[in-house]
């Protein structure tokens, strides 16, 4: 059936054939155009779109296959959402070692984008904990692939292009309790922010900095550093599977996030944060999945949607590069509604197209303002390119072919594993 599909950031709607994937028979549907698997549709840009082609909707294949309580290896279908998984496995004393900023993504989506969390320095990315996958390709093959095999490495972070992942084996980590001990502090000036994040991310399991980008001047930049460690205690895990109490999914798409509301929010949030430094016990859900507390928050950006710019800069060039990014943002007079800074560790990337690499990663949300934003993004791209960094495909809707090729050096090797019947809007734009 032909339907209009949006991505999370709300790019112009695109027409797709949508195919509900039930898992049996285990062969890919016959279609005229190209195929792309789709999980929860939480990717910001066109990695989850395939305009003019077909989307294989995996949300009905969300079953557990087996769990070994001795080793902590869970086998499940790829359409299972992380929140559901946490709600069922936490009571058994196990958790996911890596979660992204939302629990509504699917296992398949987390794998295809090789997502990371606030603990990258200690735990790596999602792909580091995948023990095996079942990959269905258009030639009819259904293979079990394990780490070490080239096609496995291509599929981790492979943006769904190497075939349909039907089943995943994940290594879980032991964890009891629902609480985190959170330490809040603030820093002024970009250099201080970077050095304090560097120290905190080494000492604590989770660490991230909220930046007030309404005043992006590097000398006066305000950062709120939140570091946290798991602790025992705290009760009910079923909340992981429950949708947010506040949801805006049924409200009209009013553009509530704008220049004025961002300024007010940042000023208030800053004062509140500055007033309560120190250590406290928080619920893991509110700390790791902060934005999940408002259902469908992307609609707050109105019908033109939002854009996110997430880049990583290597350790050596990060201080200078970040300073340049701030200055360009300051000159552009564009409103950045949310900015988060994290530190990536030095693990070998799990996949050929994995985004995380050692350095600092900055994610910035903007209300969509097509022309001016694109000019800004081009200038940011130039800085990232020069600093030897990368832009995150899962968030991207603008990256040039040159930047992609420069940042993802294994693209040619990866392209050999792309299934000939698979494609995406992103891949046609930057890769193929």
């Amino acid at each position, binding site marked *: 059936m032909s339907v209009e599909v949006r991505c999370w950031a709300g790019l112009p709607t695109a027409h797709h054939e949508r195919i*509900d994937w039930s898992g049996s028979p285990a062969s890919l549907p016959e279609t005229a155009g190209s195929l792309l698997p789709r999980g929860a549709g939480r990717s910001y840009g066109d990695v989850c779109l395939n305009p003019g082609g077909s989307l294989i909707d995996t949300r009905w294949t969300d*079953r*557990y*296959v087996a769990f070994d309580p001795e080793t902590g290896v869970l086998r499940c279908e790829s359409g299972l959402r992380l929140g559901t998984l946490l709600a069922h496995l936490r*009571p058994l004393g196990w958790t996911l070692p890596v979660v992204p900023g939302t629990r509504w993504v699917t296992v398949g989506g987390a794998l295809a984008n090789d997502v990371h969390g606030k603990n990258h320095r200690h735990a790596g990315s999602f792909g580091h904990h995948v023990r095996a996958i079942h990959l269905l390709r258009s030639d009819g093959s259904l293979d079990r692939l394990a780490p070490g095999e080239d096609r496995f490495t291509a599929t981790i972070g492979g943006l769904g292009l190497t075939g349909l992942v039907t089943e995943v084996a994940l290594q879980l980590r032991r964890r009891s309790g629902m609480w985190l001990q959170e330490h809040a502090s603030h820093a002024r000036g970009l250099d201080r922010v970077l050095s304090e994040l560097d120290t905190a991310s080494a000492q604590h399991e989770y660490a991230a900095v909220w930046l007030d980008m309404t005043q992006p001047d590097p000398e006066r930049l305000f950062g709120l550093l939140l570091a946290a460690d798991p602790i025992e205690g705290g009760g009910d895990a079923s909340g992981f599977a429950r949708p947010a109490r506040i949801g805006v999914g049924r409200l009209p798409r009013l553009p509530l996030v704008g220049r004025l509301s961002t300024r007010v929010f940042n000023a208030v949030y800053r004062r509140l944060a500055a007033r309560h430094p120190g250590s406290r016990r928080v619920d893991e859900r509110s700390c790791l999945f902060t934005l999940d507390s408002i259902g469908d928050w992307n609609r707050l950006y109105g019908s033109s949607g939002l854009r996110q710019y997430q880049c990583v800069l290597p350790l050596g060039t990060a201080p200078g590069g970040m300073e340049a990014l701030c200055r360009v943002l300051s000159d552009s007079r564009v409103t950045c509604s949310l900015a988060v800074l994290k530190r990536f560790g030095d693990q070998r990337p799990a996949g050929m197209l994995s985004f995380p690499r050692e350095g600092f990663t900055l994610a910035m949300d903007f209300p969509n303002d097509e022309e001016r934003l694109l000019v800004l993004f081009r200038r940011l791209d130039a800085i990232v390119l020069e600093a030897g960094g990368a832009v995150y495909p899962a968030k991207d809707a603008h990256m040039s072919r040159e930047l992609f090729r420069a940042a993802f050096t294994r693209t040619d090797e990866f392209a050999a594993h792309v299934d000939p019947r698979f494609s995406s809007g992103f891949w046609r734009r930057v890769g193929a």
Partner: protein
Amino acid sequence: MLVGRDASRLERIAADLRIRGATEVRCVVRDLSHVNDLQPWMDALWSEWNGLDLCLVAQGTLPDTKRCESDIDYAKSVLELNADACLLLLLALAARFEAQASGQLLALGSVAGDRGRAGNYVYGAAKAALATLMSGLEQRLAPRGVQVLTIKPGWVDTPMTAAFRKGPLWASAEKVARDIVRTSLRGRSGVVYSPAFWRPIAWVVRMLPGWLFRRWRF
């Protein structure tokens, strides 16, 4: 206990349910559209399980109404599965529940059964038959301590309705599942619409005068 036709799919569902917290799951392979020897099968089940506490009858297909109009054999198979097989199964279960004087008998009806509409009346007729039977069972069994509950979902986003364009009246399968669990835990008999806003909608549709109903093809 899961009953269905396809052993390997039942096994996958069973494995899933075990991790979701079910302490014991057993699969029974049986084509429920076959109504022969229902009685001995039910006897065997009852003695194996030493009685059942709750049964949810949820079998059914969404037929192609146009094809039913021209292909009577197809219509026959549709009605056998959606009406005959369900009704006979419910009758057989009712006798068992009546004898043990406890338990919960649940069945999935549909708002389509509240008034036949040109687009969907064969399916609707089967669901109307089911609702009528359940209503009778409710009157017969409720005084004997058996809960009889008909769940009438509205439009639900499932693989069965994959071919439909979804609008604001559509509910997720999770929402309907939560409603089923919640009302069955409450232990009441009767009819429950899911989501609840379908009750007034269904009432209005039933109350529409014939002349308006005939003209207003929705």
